[in-house]
């Protein structure tokens, strides 16, 4: 038998709950049932158990017994927010997070925060508290539950604006605070129920016994549902039971008309009842292109609401609504469809057919729920080109000309044609007119053709009278063909338009991807993303990321004058940290002018893309959202690719460094041990009496060691990036003389000629680093120059730059490979005839020269008698200022 297979989704949900705080909701049927009182007393009980409890916010409404219960608790002071001249006192979320209690009591979950708060709704504050691992007790009345909002409003006629999404209830423990309706009415009469001023009008109706009973039932049912859902989740996580797999899938079709919110809430109830996943679907038909901004906004708002209620959202392009819905139902294997039936005029239905009727007829396997929607006028929009297009004067002229031509042709050929053939000829202008110029012109062609046929060919010729009934038929056939052809062509044209639009989108995306694929630099790629999005969506764009693991920072912007205030940055950080959208049009920090979307690959958030509309409207139109999300996905992939490339580069760097380290170790062991061996051996022989020879050996080898250690230290400083420059005006003749003095031991056996004119200008370099460069060059010349030959140091002022060359007489450098001598640990072939020398020296020359901005050159002498190493001091380093009189 197959072992039970745990449902991964349910396991994930369970895992996500670990480490989070737990939410307990005290659910009431109506105000006044005593939720706050119940919450406080239970909080008190927990406190007595030793739990760290604080009050985040509690409204006592001056009730004495409730007030008394708050006294035992620590209360986190509220935050004061100035708003339109009033001071609002809101729960201080950050203070609670900083206080980090085990349990916090937060009254009135459905509360709307003052504008400018971090979250527009209190339940979002609560979500953040839960995420921080803090348990929360909260209270809410049943009419504030999002999906029940309409239901409650339908029988109480009181609609509350403050709602709490159902998702909040899904993970919460729910306790129904229940008192019988009679008792509640008693309490109301005794003045024990606080109600806001504006609500008192509706009071009489709201608190009727029947209403309260219904509300009570709703509350109890909702609580039972929550228990059910959790149990089911547990069962699924354990892999027990298995009836959900082939369960119901619900699709709700929305459109641009008002009233779709109710449709979405109804679908949520259906989905909850059936425990199935649900999707809100918008069909993008050619009509959408003519939507007003209001209509776009309405679609976007409805989609957002659906997403908040837990729906997946989808937009599919299709030539008409029915086809779009049908293909989506098939693809999604949906079992339930929720649609609204708008009460349109009869005329509209006659012309367009009823969408609902066709869906019910053509989708046999789907249960269709039809909800009434508000009546809308059909005259909102002017008639558009398509079937009803009036046609152009040119169209009519061409058609008339064609018919005349056909008439002339038929007259000319009438002696070999019969009547039927003539009628066929007349089909030609009708089809041409209908397909090229639309229905009206087609009908005109049909009419004129039949009149011409009648007048010129049907007996009695020369009159419009018809004496044969079958000829009447041919007139109707011509008209019918005109209608059919124009309809077919119009349809084909619509589909072609759709295909073209989709091709445009694809081409846009493809172009974007192609361009950006060639970029290997993060900054360039980021700038290109911003510029392209701006061009494609006509919005302001910023891209933020955390380069080098630092704080979130702006990487690029489409417009250099962009502005991000504290609120915007908070939204960006939120989007980056949580991986969900924030800012304008989202549920979080909506007061920001920007909408920030995370750039995600898998679970890794690589950056945040912010878009804003300069005009201040919605950042991106609803119909552009799919394009935006595709572009965002592509951008995220690009960032991921660059990140991986950078990682690869780092690996390469590490590998190179390892290779260098290995080379260094081998050279160190060789170059340190050789002179040490000599020193130790010579010292041992000193016991037998010191000879000048032995002493010279010890001194020479020790000096070599010292020189080598100095080079190692220098190289280490270069490698560690710890070179600190102390640039000073320096006299080259002085520097060369000093270096020659210090290198005198290495130059032993060579003649040294210093040819540095004393009138060379001063140069700005680090004297210490220059000294080490010169020491190494002299050391190198002493080592590779043939013994007894002369080493020349030559300073020249040439074409505005100073060149300082060290020339030796010797084998020189292998032709064509002169530049390689500066690579670390490079000892050119044939060079190890001289003991010692790690190849560090010339690498240090190069590194130091680079640091000071000097050029270096290695070449063979012009007369091929040896090597020439040249330091080049560019004009920028030369001191040119005139010196004051007093120094002259």
């Amino acid at each position, binding site marked *: 038998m197959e072992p039970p297979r745990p449902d991964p989704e349910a396991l994930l949900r369970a895992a996500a709950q670990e480490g989070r705080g737990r939410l307990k909701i005290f659910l009431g049927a109506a105000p006044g049932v005593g939720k706050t009182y119940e919450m406080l007393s239970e909080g008190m009980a927990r406190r007595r158990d030793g739990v760290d409890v604080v009050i985040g916010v509690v409204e006592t409404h001056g009730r004495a017994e409730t007030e008394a219960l708050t006294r035992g608790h620590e209360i986190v002071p509220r935050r004061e927010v100035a708003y339109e001249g009033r001071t609002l006192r809101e729960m201080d979320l950050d203070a609670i997070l900083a206080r980090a209690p085990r349990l916090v009591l937060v009254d009135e979950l459905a509360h709307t925060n003052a504008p400018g708060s971090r979250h527009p709704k209190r339940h979002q504050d609560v979500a953040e508290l839960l995420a921080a691992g803090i348990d929360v007790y909260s209270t809410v009345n049943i009419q504030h539950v999002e999906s029940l909002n309409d239901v409650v409003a339908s029988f109480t006629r009181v609609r509350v604006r403050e709602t709490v999404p159902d998702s909040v209830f899904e993970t919460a423990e729910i306790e129904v605070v229940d008192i019988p309706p009679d008792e509640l009415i008693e309490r109301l009469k005794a003045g024990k129920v606080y109600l806001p001023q504006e609500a008192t009008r509706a009071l009489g109706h709201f608190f009727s016994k029947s209403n309260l009973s219904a509300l009570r039932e709703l509350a109890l049912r909702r609580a039972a549902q929550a228990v059910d859902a959790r149990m089911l989740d547990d069962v699924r996580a354990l892999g027990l039971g298995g009836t959900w797999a082939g369960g119901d899938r619900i699709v709700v079709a929305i459109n641009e008309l008002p009233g779709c919110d109710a449709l979405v809430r109804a679908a949520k109830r259906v989905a909850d009842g059936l425990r199935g996943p649900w999707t809100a679907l918008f069909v993008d038909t050619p009509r959408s292109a003519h939507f007003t901004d209001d209509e776009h906004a309405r679609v976007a708002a409805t989609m957002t609401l659906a997403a908040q209620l837990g729906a997946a959202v989808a937009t599919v392009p299709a030539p008409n609504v029915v086809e779009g819905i049908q293909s989506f139902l098939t693809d999604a294997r949906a079992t339930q469809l929720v649609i609204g039936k708008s009460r349109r005029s009869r005329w509209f239905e006659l012309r367009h057919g009823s969408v609902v009727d066709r869906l019910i007829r053509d989708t046999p396997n789907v249960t269709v729920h039809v909800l009434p929607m508000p009546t809308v006028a059909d005259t909102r929009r002017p008639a558009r080109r398509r079937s009803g297009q009036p046609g152009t004067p040119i169209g009519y002229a061409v058609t008339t000309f064609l018919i005349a031509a056909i008439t002339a042709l038929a007259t000319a050929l009438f002696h070999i044609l019969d009547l039927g053939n003539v009628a066929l000829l007349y089909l030609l202008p009708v089809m041409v007119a209908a397909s090229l110029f639309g229905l009206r012109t087609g009908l005109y062609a049909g009419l004129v053709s039949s009149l011409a046929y009648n007048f010129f060919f049907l007996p009695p010729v020369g009159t419009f009278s018809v004496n044969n009934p079958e000829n009447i038929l041919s007139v109707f056939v011509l008209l019918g063909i005109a209608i059919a052809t124009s309809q077919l062509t119009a349809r084909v044209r619509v589909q072609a338009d759709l295909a073209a639009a989709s091709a445009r989108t694809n081409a846009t995306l493809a172009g974007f991807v192609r361009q950006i694929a060639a970029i290997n630099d993060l900054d360039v790629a980021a700038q290109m993303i911003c510029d392209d999005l701006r061009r494609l969506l006509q919005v302001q764009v910023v891209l933020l990321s955390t380069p080098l693991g630092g704080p979130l920072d702006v990487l690029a912007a489409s417009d250099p004058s962009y502005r991000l205030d504290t609120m915007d940055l908070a939204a960006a950080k939120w989007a980056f940290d949580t991986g969900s959208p924030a800012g304008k049009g989202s549920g979080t920090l909506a007061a920001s002018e920007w909408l920030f979307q995370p750039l995600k690959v898998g679970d890794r958030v690589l950056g945040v893309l912010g878009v804003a509309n300069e005009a201040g409207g919605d950042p991106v139109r609803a119909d552009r959202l799919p394009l935006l999300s595709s572009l965002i996905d592509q951008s995220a992939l690009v960032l991921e690719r660059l990140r991986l490339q950078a990682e690869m580069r780092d690996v390469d760097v590490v590998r190179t460094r390892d290779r260098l380290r290995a080379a260094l170790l081998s050279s160190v062991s060789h170059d340190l041990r050789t002179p040490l061996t000599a020193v130790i051996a010579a010292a041992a022989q000193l016991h037998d009496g010191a000879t000048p020879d032995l002493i010279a050996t010890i001194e020479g080898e020790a000096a070599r060691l*010292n020189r080598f250690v100095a080079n190692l230290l220098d190289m280490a400083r270069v490698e560690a990036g710890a070179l600190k420059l102390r640039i000073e005006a320096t006299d080259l003749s*002085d520097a060369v003389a000093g270096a020659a003095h210090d290198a005198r031991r290495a130059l032993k056996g060579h003649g040294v000629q210093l040819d540095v004119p004393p009138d060379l200008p001063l140069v700005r370099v680090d004297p210490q680093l220059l000294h080490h460069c010169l020491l190494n060059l002299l050391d190198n010349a002493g080592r590779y120059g043939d013994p007894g030959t002369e080493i020349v140091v030559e300073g020249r002022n040439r074409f505005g730059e100073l060149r300082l060359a060290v020339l030796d007489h010797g084998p020189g450098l292998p032709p064509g490979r002169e530049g390689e001598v500066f690579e670390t640990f490079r000892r050119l072939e044939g060079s190890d005839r001289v003991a010692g020398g790690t190849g560090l020296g010339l690498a240090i020359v190069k590194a130091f020269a680079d640091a000071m901005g000097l050029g270096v050159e290695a070449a063979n002498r012009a007369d091929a008698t040896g090597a020439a190493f040249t330091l080049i001091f560019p004009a920028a380093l030369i001191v040119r200022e005139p010196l004051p009189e007093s120094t002259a």
Partner: protein
Amino acid sequence: MPARILVVDDDAAIRRLLRNTLLRAGHDVIEAGDGKTALRQAAAEHPDAVLLDLGLPDRDGLSLIPLLRAAGEAVILVVSARDAVEEKVTALDLGADDFVTKPFDTDELLARLRVALRHRERSEAPPHIVRRGDLTIDFDTRTVRRGDTDLHLTRKEYDVLGLLARHIGRVVTHDRILTSCWSGDEDPRIEYLRIIIRNLRQKLEPPGEIGSVIANELGVGYRLRADG
């Protein structure tokens, strides 16, 4: 001229080497392995000179300099393996008389010590005349002679050479030269000093022997070499 020398170094081998060298030169040697002992020895034994290593186990050698200065008249010679220019300048600014970088040449070390001790003896009265080989600098007549010939120096050249001569054998930092030889309304810049030194070299040093009279301590300052 035997003197009492305090050797401060944490490395016993170096202390032994220095002791042998100094004893052979006729000096009296006291030793200290860390900063605390050094201060105690300096207070108790009143040495004439301190050879101070900067890398001590218990404290930074630089911080000892002002304390040693305050404790007595001893000249302070810094002996350190650290090669940083800043540190040399700081040591001189704090009151050290001179510095020698490890690994050092023992002859060089003894010469520097001799110069420093000599300066200490007559530090009260500035000299009237300084002689170095065939070079004579007469502060009373403000003349500089080489053998029997008068050398014609500009005022600035004379100022700089005079300052170096008063500290003959010891390094004088760039800053010190610039502040004492350039007056307030002039712009003291190292470029000008370089030119002055170059001019002095041309007048004092034989061709091809740059540095034989005035030594350039890279990044720190200049020194008039003590013996010709």
